[in-house]
C-alpha cells in the first residue's frame, strides 16, 4: 500500500513538472436549494473529453489550465459553466423541477435519482410535515403508491399506523417492512420524532431491497435524520396545539327505546304478544318524568365516558450549527396528547444531537445521540377500546354515576361500569426510555475510495406499572331518595410492575470504490454487518392493597407472583453491490447478500441464505433517435429488475424449537399436574408443536417501471410488479389430533401479489400562484398459490386456501329474510332444526335465510363459501399544494376503492351479550317486521336468542371503501422585511384540520378505515390545529 502511494506521489510530481501551467482545481458541488452535496455530477473541461465526477460528498479534483472553462452537468440540474481562476471552486447547482438531480438514500449508500434502476420512493421532510401528527407512520399515508398505511386506532401512544409495502407479504409472519434509521434496525418508525427526519425512503422492489437479505421481503423503510447543513447557525421553533375529536361514534338508543325494543325482542322470542321485560307502566313513567337518576335513569354513557380534553401539543426546537471543522444538528421535542377518556394520555420527550467532526480532509467522525422518554397512560381494568365499546353498548337504563366516587351498576349483574373503569379503578402507566447511540467514521484514503464504519446501540427500557383499585358501586334507594353502597368493583386490588431491557447492538464496515473511465462509470460496494438483539424482563405483582393511594408492592398482603424471561436474536450478513453505467444512459446494478440468522436451526443448516437482484435502466430520452423524435417528452427512463429476498420476522426467537413448560390446572385442559393419592405432583409437558426444519420465507419479485417528464411540468412514474412468496411462514392451525399444542410456524406454501402503481405530479407557477399536484393510484391483488398438503388454513373466522386471497372470509351467503312461515317451511332446513309452529327453537319469519350452496336441501357447515377479504384495493390519493405570495395551502385526500369488513359483536348484534348485556344502537331500529321486509337487521331477539342470524355471512360483510379529506393546511408566511428587524429570518403561522370529511357506505358512526369487527375501537381523530414555525 505504502509503495503504491509513493508511486502515485512521484507520478503526480512528474505530471506537475511536465505541464507546469496546469493547476489542481478542487471543490465541492452543492444543491442550491437543500445545501446538500451532490454526487455524480460530471465535471468536464469545455471542448475536451477529459473530466471527472463528484464523489458522495460532492467533491471533485481536476487538473486544468487557468482560464479554462469547467462545465458542471447532470440530469436534474441546470448546467453550469465557470471559468477557472482559483484552486478552490465551490459550486451551487440549481435543481430542475423534475427532481431527478436529487440524491436519495438507498441501502448502505446514496444514489442520484436519475441513475436509479429499482422502484423506490423518497419523501423529504417538507412532504412529511404538512400534517401535524403524533406518530410518524401516520404521516406516510397516501404519499407513496403501493404503500398501504392503515391507522387503526386514535389512542394516545398507540395511534401509529401499520405500513405494508406492495401487499400481504406473509401469512403469519410479519407484514411490516424492515425499518432502518441511520443504519440501525430499530423496529419502530414511531420512535423517531418526525421533526428530526430529513428523509424517508421506501424501498419497494427486490433490486432495492435485496441488499437487506433475509429481512427485506416486505420492503424496507430507510430513515435519515437531519444533520447540520451549510456553515451557519440557525435556530427554529415549530409548535402547534391541536384539538382532537372522534371521527365517528355510533349513536345509542334512549332508555325508552331500549325498554320498548326489549319488549319487542321478548315477544319475538316467546311468540307471546303479551310478553314483556319492562312493564308498560314503567315505560309510561319514563315518558312523563324527566330523568332523575333515581327511578328514571337515562344514562348517556358516551357523554359520561368521553370526558377528557383531547388536546395535543407539540413543541419542537431545532438548532443547526454548521461549521467547517465541526457541526451539529440538535433537536428537542415535547409532545403531550390527551385522549378522549380519563387516564388516556401520551407524553413524549425527544432529544437528539447529531454531531460531525472533520478531523482532516480525509477523515470525518459522525455521531448520533438520541434519547426518547415517553409516558403512556391507560385505564388498568380494561382497555380504552373496551371502555368505549361498553359506552356504546350499555343500556341507558343502567345507573352511571350518582355523584363523586359513586358509580351505578350499569344494569350489569357484575356491576362493571365503564365510567368507574375509566376514572376510578387505577391506571396502567408505561414509561419508555430509549437511548440510541451511533458512532462512526468516513475515510477517503484515495480518490474514489470511501471506507465507512460504525457501531450503533439502542437500549430501551420500558417500565410498566399497573394499579388496580376498587370503585364503590351504589344503588338508588327509592324509599329514602338516596343511594346505598352495594359493593365494590372489581372487588380486588392489585399492583403489577414489569421492567424490560431491549438491547440492540450493531457493527458495520463497508467500502465503496467508484471510478469513471470515459463514458464507463463503475461503483462497487462491499461490506458486512452484525446485529444482536437481546431481551430481558422481570416483573412482580401482588394483590390485596388496603390503601388505594399507596401503590407500592410491599403493601400488598394477598397473592404474590413474579416472573422473568430472556431471549436473544443474532444476525450477520455480508453484502455487495456493483453499479455500472455507460454514457449516463444505460444503467446496470447487481446486489447481493449472504445472510445468517439465529432464529432457525444451526444443527439443520437453516441459518444461512443468499439473496440477490439484478436491475437495469435505460434513459431512452437521451438516445439520438428520441431527441429528434419528440419534444414533448423531456426525460424518459425504463427500468426493470428481478431479485429475491427473505422474511424471518415471526416474533419468536426460537421458533425452530419447542419447550417443556408448567401449566396450572386452570389453563383449560392443558394442565401439567397430576394428583396421585390426592396430592399434587408437578409435571411438565410440551405445550408447543416443534418444527426444527423451519426457515425464512423467500420472495421473488420482478418489476418494470417507467419514469417520464412531459412538457417540463408533468412527472410520471409507473410500475408493474409480480411478487411471489415461497415457503411462507404460517402459524398453522393443526387438527386437534396433533395434540392441541400451540400452533407451530411452518414453511407453508406459495403466494402471489400482483400490482401496479401510478403517480403523476404537475408543477407550475402562474405569476404569484404556484401549483403542485400529485395524484396516485395503485392496486395489488393477492392470491395463495398453494399451501402445505394443499389443506386450507383456518384462522379466526377467515380461511386461507389455494386460489383465494389470503385470509378470505368464509361463511354463509344470506338470501334475505324469511318473509313468513310458509317461506320457513318451504326453505331448506337450517342447521338441523326444522320449522315447528310451537317450539321457540328454529327459524322464524324475520330470521336470516341462508342460501343452499351445495344444493343438498339443507343448510349446514357445507354451505359456506368464500366471501371476499379485508385487504384494501385501488388505493388512491390526491395531494394539492398551492402557494400564493405568502400564503400556502395543502389539501390532501386519500381513499380506498374496494375493501370488505365483517361486522359482529356489539356493533352488529342488538342486545349482544358477549362481554356484557348490551342495549342496541340507533341503526338497529331498522329491524325486520312484516311491514319492513327489507330491513337492515333481522327481527329483534333478546341476548343469546339470536339463533343463527349473526353467523359469518355475506349479510354482515360490508363495503369499507372510502374517500377522506385527510388534511387541509393553510399557512401564511409573514413578510421578511417585517421580521428582519426583530432578528427573525422566517415566521409562518398555519391552521390545519385532519379527517375533515369522509365519504363511505359504512354504518353511521363506524369509521371505514378501522377494521373493527365488534365495534371495539378507539376512534380515529378529527383534529383542528393551530401552529407556528419560527426561524432565527
Amino acid at each position, binding site marked *: 500500500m505504502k509503495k503504491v502511494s509513493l508511486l502515485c506521489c512521484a507520478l503526480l510530481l512528474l505530471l506537475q513538472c511536465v505541464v507546469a501551467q496546469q493547476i489542481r482545481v478542487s471543490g465541492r458541488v452543492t444543491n442550491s436549494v437543500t445545501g446538500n452535496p451532490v454526487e455524480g455530477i460530471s465535471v468536464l473541461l469545455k471542448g475536451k473529453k477529459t473530466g471527472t465526477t463528484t464523489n458522495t460528498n460532492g467533491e471533485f479534483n481536476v487538473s486544468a489550465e487557468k482560464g479554462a472553462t469547467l462545465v458542471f452537468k447532470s440530469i436534474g440540474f441546470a448546467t453550469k459553466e465557470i471559468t477557472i481562476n482559483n484552486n478552490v471552486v465551490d459550486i451551487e447547482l440549481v435543481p430542475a423541477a423534475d427532481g431527478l438531480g436529487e440524491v436519495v438514500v438507498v441501502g448502505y449508500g446514496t444514489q442520484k435519482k436519475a441513475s436509479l434502476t429499482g422502484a423506490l420512493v423518497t419523501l423529504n421532510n417538507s412532504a412529511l410535515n404538512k400534517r401535524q401528527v403524533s406518530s410518524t407512520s401516520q404521516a406516510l399515508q397516501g404519499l407513496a403508491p403501493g404503500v398501504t398505511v392503515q391507522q387503526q386506532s386514535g389512542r394516545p401512544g398507540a395511534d401509529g399506523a401499520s405500513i405494508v409495502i406492495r401487499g400481504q407479504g406473509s401469512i403469519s409472519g410479519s407484514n411490516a417492512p424492515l425499518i432502518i434509521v441511520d443504519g440501525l434496525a430499530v423496529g419502530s418508525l414511531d420512535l423517531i420524532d418526525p421533526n428530526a427526519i430529513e428523509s424517508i425512503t421506501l424501498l419497494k422492489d427486490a433490486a432495492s431491497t435485496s441488499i437487506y437479505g433475509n429481512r427485506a421481503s416486505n420492503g424496507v423503510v430507510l430513515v435519515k435524520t437531519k444533520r447540520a447543513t451549510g456553515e451557519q447557525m440557525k435556530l427554529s421553533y415549530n409548535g402547534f396545539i391541536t384539538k382532537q375529536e372522534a371521527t365517528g361514534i355510533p349513536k345509542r338508543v334512549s332508555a325508552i327505546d331500549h325498554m320498548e325494543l326489549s319488549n319487542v325482542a321478548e315477544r319475538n322470542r316467546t311468540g307471546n304478544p303479551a310478553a314483556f321485560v319492562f312493564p308498560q307502566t314503567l315505560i309510561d313513567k319514563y315518558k312523563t318524568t324527566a330523568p332523575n337518576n333515581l327511578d328514571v335513569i337515562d344514562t348517556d354513557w358516551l357523554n359520561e365516558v368521553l370526558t377528557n380534553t383531547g388536546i395535543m401539543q407539540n413543541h419542537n426546537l431545532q438548532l443547526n450549527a454548521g461549521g467547517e471543522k465541526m457541526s451539529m444538528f440538535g433537536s428537542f421535542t415535547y409532545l403531550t396528547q390527551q385522549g378522549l377518556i380519563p387516564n388516556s394520555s401520551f407524553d413524549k420527550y425527544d432529544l437528539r444531537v447529531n454531531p460531525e467532526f472533520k478531523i482532516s480532509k480525509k477523515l470525518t467522525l459522525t455521531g448520533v445521540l438520541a434519547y426518547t422518554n415517553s409516558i403512556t397512560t391507560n385505564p388498568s381494568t380494561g382497555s380504552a377500546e373496551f371502555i368505549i365499546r361498553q359506552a356504546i353498548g350499555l343500556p341507558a337504563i343502567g345507573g352511571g354515576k350518582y355523584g363523586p366516587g359513586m358509580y351505578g351498576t350499569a344494569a350489569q349483574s357484575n356491576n362493571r361500569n365503564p365510567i368507574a373503569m375509566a376514572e376510578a379503578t387505577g391506571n396502567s402507566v408505561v414509561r419508555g426510555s430509549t437511548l440510541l447511540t451511533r458512532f462512526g467514521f468516513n475515510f477517503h484514503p484515495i480518490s474514489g475510495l470511501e471506507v465507512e464504519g460504525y457501531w450503533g446501540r439502542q437500549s430501551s427500557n420500558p417500565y410498566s406499572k399497573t394499579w388496580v383499585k376498587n370503585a364503590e358501586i351504589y344503588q338508588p334507594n327509592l324509599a329514602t331518595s338516596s343511594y346505598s353502597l352495594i359493593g365494590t368493583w372489581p372487588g380486588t386490588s392489585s399492583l403489577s410492575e414489569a421492567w424490560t431491557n431491549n438491547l440492540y447492538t450493531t457493527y458495520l464496515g463497508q467500502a465503496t470504490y467508484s471510478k469513471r473511465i470515459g463514458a464507463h462509470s463503475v461503483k462497487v460496494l462491499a461490506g458486512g454487518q*452484525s446485529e444482536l438483539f437481546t431481551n430481558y424482563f422481570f416483573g412482580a405483582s401482588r394483590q390485596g392493597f388496603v390503601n388505594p393511594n399507596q401503590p407500592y408492592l410491599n403493601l400488598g398482603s394477598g397473592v404474590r407472583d413474579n416472573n422473568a424471561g430472556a431471549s436473544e436474536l443474532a444476525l450477520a450478513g455480508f453484502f455487495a453491490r456493483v453499479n455500472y453505467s455507460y454514457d449516463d444512459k444505460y444503467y446496470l446494478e447487481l446486489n447481493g447478500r449472504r445472510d445468517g440468522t439465529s432464529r432457525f436451526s444451526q444443527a439443520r443448516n437453516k441459518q444461512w441464505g443468499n439473496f440477490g437482484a439484478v436491475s437495469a435502466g435505460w434513459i431512452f430520452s437521451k438516445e439520438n433517435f428520441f431527441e429528434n423524435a419528440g419534444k414533448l417528452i423531456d426525460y424518459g427512463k425504463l427500468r426493470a429488475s428481478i431479485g429475491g429476498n427473505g422474511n424471518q420476522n415471526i416474533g419468536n426467537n*426460537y421458533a425452530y424449537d419447542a419447550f417443556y413448560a408448567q401449566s396450572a390446572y386452570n389453563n383449560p385442559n392443558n394442565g401439567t399436574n397430576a394428583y396421585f393419592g390426592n*396430592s399434587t405432583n408437578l*409435571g411438565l409437558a410440551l405445550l408447543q408443536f416443534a418444527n426444527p426444519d423451519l426457515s425464512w420465507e423467500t420472495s421473488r419479485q420482478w418489476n418494470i417501471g417507467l419514469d417520464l417528464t412531459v412538457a417540463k411540468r408533468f412527472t410520471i412514474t409507473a410500475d408493474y410488479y409480480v411478487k411471489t412468496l415461497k415457503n411462507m411462514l404460517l402459524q398453522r392451525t393443526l387438527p386437534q389430533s*396433533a395434540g392441541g399444542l400451540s400452533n407451530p410456524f411452518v414453511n407453508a406454501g406459495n403466494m402471489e401479489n400482483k400490482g401496479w402503481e401510478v403517480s403523476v405530479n404537475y408543477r407550475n407557477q402562474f405569476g404569484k400562484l404556484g401549483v403542485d399536484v400529485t395524484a396516485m393510484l395503485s392496486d395489488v391483488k393477492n392470491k395463495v398459490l398453494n399451501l402445505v398438503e394443499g389443506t386450507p388454513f*383456518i384462522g379466526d373466522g377467515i380461511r386461507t386456501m389455494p386460489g383465494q386471497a389470503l385470509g378470505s372470509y368464509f361463511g354463509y351467503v344470506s338470501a334475505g329474510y324469511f318473509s313468513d312461515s310458509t317461506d320457513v317451511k318451504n326453505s331448506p332446513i337450517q342447521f338441523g332444526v326444522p320449522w315447528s309452529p310451537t317450539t321457540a327453537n328454529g327459524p322464524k319469519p324475520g330470521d336470516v335465510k341462508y342460501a343452499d350452496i351445495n344444493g343438498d336441501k339443507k343448510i349446514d357447515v357445507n354451505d359456506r363459501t368464500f366471501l371476499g377479504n379485508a385487504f384494501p384495493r385501488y388505493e388512491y390519493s390526491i395531494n394539492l399544494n398551492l402557494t400564493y405570495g405568502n400564503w400556502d395551502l395543502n389539501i390532501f385526500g386519500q381513499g380506498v376503492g374496494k375493501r370488505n369488513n365483517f361486522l359482529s359483536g356489539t356493533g352488529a348484534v342488538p342486545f349482544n351479550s358477549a362481554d356484557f348485556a348490551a342495549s342496541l344502537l340507533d341503526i338497529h331500529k331498522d329491524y325486520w317486521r312484516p311491514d319492513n321486509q327489507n330491513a337492515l337487521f333481522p327481527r329483534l331477539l333478546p341476548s343469546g336468542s339470536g339463533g343463527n342470524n349473526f353467523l359469518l355471512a355475506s349479510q354482515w360483510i360490508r363495503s369499507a371503501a372510502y374517500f377522506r379529506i385527510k388534511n387541509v393546511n393553510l399557512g401564511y408566511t409573514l413578510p421578511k422585511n417585517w421580521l428582519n428587524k426583530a432578528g427573525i429570518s422566517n415566521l409562518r403561522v398555519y391552521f390545519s384540520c385532519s379527517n375533515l370529511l369522509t365519504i363511505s357506505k359504512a354504518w353511521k358512526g363506524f369509521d371505514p378505515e378501522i377494521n373493527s369487527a365488534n365495534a371495539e375501537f378507539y376512534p380515529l381523530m378529527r383534529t383542528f390545529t393551530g401552529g407556528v414555525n419560527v426561524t432565527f
Partner: protein
Amino acid sequence: MKKSIFILLSITALGLSACQKFLDRKPLDASSASTFLSNQAEMEQGLIGVYASAMWVFPNNTSLLFAIESSTDHAMKRGGNAEDLVAMGDGGPFLVNNSLSITAWNQAYKLVQRANQQITGMENGKANVNATTFNRIKAEAQVLRAWGYLHLMTWFGDVPFYKAPPSVNEVLSAKRTPVATIIADLYKDVDEAVAAFDAAGTAPVQALGRVNKAVALGIKAKLALLIKDYRTAATATKTVIDGGLYTLNPNYPNLFSLAGQTTNAGREILFCQTYPTDVNEPQNWGPILGVPRQVTNSQSSHFPSQALVDQFEDRSGNRIDASLTYDPANPRLNRDRRLAWSIYLPGDTMVHFASKTPALPYNNLRERTIFNIYSNVRRKFIWNTGVYDNVTGNNDWVGAQAAGIQWQVSATGNIGGVGYVWNKYNDSTQYTFESKVGYILLRYADILLMYAEAKIELNEIDATVLTAINAVRTRAGQPAVLINTQAALRTQVRRERAVEFAGEGLRLFDLRRWDIYGKANSGPIVGISLDPAVPAARPVFDADNVPDYSASINQRIRFRNQVRNNANAKYKLWPIPQPEIDNNPGLIQNAGW
C-alpha cells in the same frame, strides 16, 4: 499470489466460523424438546405431564365420562346442552360441531400426543437411566396412550393413529386407521408394558391415580371387547383374577367416598381420576351436578333415567317385570341395594354437604332432606332440635311448573330430570362444590364382569364365570345366579353391568359393542309417576333389557317432551369433529354424517 489467496481463504473461514458461533443462540429461559427427558427426574416429570392429560373434563371440572353417560339411555342432562343434543340423535340436532364430541376427541388426542412425546423424547436419556426404571416409565405412558385410543375408537371408530409425535405434513395428510389395525398394535404395547411392570415389581395399585399391570390388562380386555375378540379379553382378565392381588371392596358405597377410596379395601379401584386435597382446584363436579334443587346452593343438571332405575332387580334377584315384591306405588322398596346407593328416589333421605357456612336455624354444614318432588312442602332435618321441619318452597316440585319454575312435567317441556337424582359419589364429608372424591375409571368388579362376559360369548360357561358374576352380586346383597344358558347369562351380565356401574361412564362403551345404542336410546324419555296416587305400570323389557314404556307413558313425568331417535345407523359412531375435516379435507367423515 497463491499465498494471498490462502490468507484470504483463511480469513474468510475464520470469519465464517466466528459467524457460526455468533449465530448459535440457544434458548435462555426454557427446556428444549430436543434435550429434555435426559434423566430420570425429567422423565418422571414428563410422565406426570402425561397423566395430567388423562384428566378429561366436560365442561370445566365435570368428568368427561360422567358427562358422556348423560348422552346415553341411562342418564340425561338439563336440556339444550351438548350432551342432550347428542342423546337426542335426529331430534338434537346432533351436528358435526357438537362440543361434547369435539372435546372428547381433543382431550383423548392430547393424551395420545403427550404419551407419544414422552415415549419418543425419553430416548434422549436412555443411556442415563437404568433399564428397569426406563421401561416402567415408558410402560405407564404406553398404557395411557392405549387408554386414549380405546376411547377414541369407542367414540369415533377408525381414527388417525400416531405412535410418535407427528410432523405437520403427517397431521395434515392423516388418514383413518382401521380399528382392528390399531388394536393389534396396541396389544403389543400393552404386552410390553405388562412385562415392564413385572420386571419393575410394580405395586398392585400404585398411588391411586397411576396405572399398573392390572390396568394394562384391563385396558387390553376392553380393546378386545371392542372388536369382539373374546379370547383375548378372557385371557387378559383371567390373568388379573388369577394374580390374586385384588378382591372386591366389601362395602360398595365406600368405593365412592374419599375415605373409602383412600383405604381402597381389596384394592378394588385399579385406576381413578383423582383430585388433590392439598390445593383447591381441580375438584370433582360430578357430585354438585347431582344435588337436587331443593337443597341449598344446588346446581342439579345431570340426572339418572327411568330406564336405568328399572334395571335394578328386586332383592330376590328378579327384574321388576318378573318381580313379586316390586310395588309401582313404592318403587324404592325391596330393591337391589345398589339402587339406593346410586340414586335417590322420592322418599329417600338425602344428606348433602351443601354449604360451607351453616345456615340458621339448621346449624350444620350438612343438609338432611327427604327427597320430595310431589309437594311444595318438603321435610328438612333441623340439627339442633333433632326433628324434621316442614319447609315450604320446593324447586323440584312437579307442580312448580305453574309458578314458572321449570321442573319438567308431562308434555309441557322443562329442564329438570325425571324424578331421580344421583347419590353415587355424593360424599357428605365433602363440600359438594369442592368434592375431592375420585372418579373411578377401572375397578376390579369390571375385570370380573368383563371376564364373565367374554367367557359367556365364547360359550365357555363354567364355574369361574358364575363365581365372577356372583362375587359382584353377593357383595351387593343380591342372590347368586344359577342359570347357565348363554342367552340368559348374557342378559344377566349386561344388566349386572348396568346397575353395578351406573353413572360410572361405561354405558356408551357397552351399548356400542353390544350394538344396541340405537335401540336403547330411542323413544320418549319418561320418568317416575306423575302422580304418586296413580302409579305408572311396569315397563316391558326385551332380551337386551331395553324397557318399553308405551303402556304407562301418560302416567309418567316426561323429560322436555323429548323423543330420542337414534335409529339411524349413523349414530353407532359419533362424527369426526368438523374442525378436523376443515383442516384436513382428506379425513373421511363417518358414514351418514
